[in-house]
C-alpha cells in the first residue's frame, strides 16, 4: 500500500512540474533572464509550492511520526 501511495505522490509531483512549465528548461531560463524578455511564471510555481508546503509541513510538525509510522527525517 505504501508503494502505491508513493507512486501517486510522484505522479502528482510530475503533473505539477508539467503544468507549471518546469519541465521546459527554456521557461526556467526565461525566468533567469532579468535583462531580457522576463517570464516571472516561476515565482508563481515557488509561491504556490511554498504556500502549500508551509501548511503541510506545519500540520506534520505537531505529530510524532508519519502516517506510515516511520519517523520524520
Amino acid at each position, binding site marked *: 500500500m505504501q508503494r502505491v501511495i508513493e*507512486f501517486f505522490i510522484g*505522479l502528482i509531483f510530475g503533473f505539477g512540474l508539467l503544468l507549471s512549465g518546469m519541465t521546459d528548461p527554456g521557461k526556467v531560463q526565461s525566468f533567469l533572464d532579468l535583462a531580457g524578455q522576463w517570464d516571472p511564471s*516561476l515565482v508563481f510555481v515557488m509561491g504556490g509550492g511554498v504556500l502549500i508546503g508551509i501548511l503541510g509541513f506545519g500540520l506534520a510538525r505537531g505529530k510524532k511520526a508519519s502516517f506510515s509510522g516511520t519517523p520524520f527525517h
Partner: protein
Amino acid sequence: MTIDWLNFTPLTSLIGGVLIGVAASLLFMNSGRILGVTGILEGLLRSRVGDKAWRLSFVLGLFASGLIAQWSWPADWIHAPRIDASWSLLMLAGLLVGLGTRWGAGCTSGHGICGLSRFSLRSLIATLSFMATGFLTIFLIRHIF
C-alpha cells in the same frame, strides 16, 4: 527589464506549484521524507542505501506522469521541453547539477520547496545561492558573451 507577457503563465504555474506543494507535503506526512528529487535519486544509485523501494515507487510515478500527460492532456497544457544544446554540453551541465546538488545537500525541490516551507535557514541560503548563480550565468551568456 521587459516582461514576456506572451509566455507568462501565472495560472497554470500557480496550479502546478500547488500540486508540487501537495506532493511534498504528502510525502512528508505519509512517509516522513523530504521530497528532494536529486536526493531521492542519489539514494537509488547508492549501493549502501537500503530504503530503495519508496524511492523507486516515487520515481516510477514521476516517469508515469510524463507518459500519462503525453497521452491524455491537451497539448497546450504541457510545456514540451525544447533543448538546443549538444549532447556533450548537456552531459557537462548534468554533471554540474549533480555535483552542486550533492555538495549543496539539495536541489530546487528539496531546498526551494521543502526547506523554505520549513523555514530552514540552510535551505534559504542554498536557494538564494543557486538562484543568484542562475541569474548571473544567464546574464553572462545572453548579454555579455
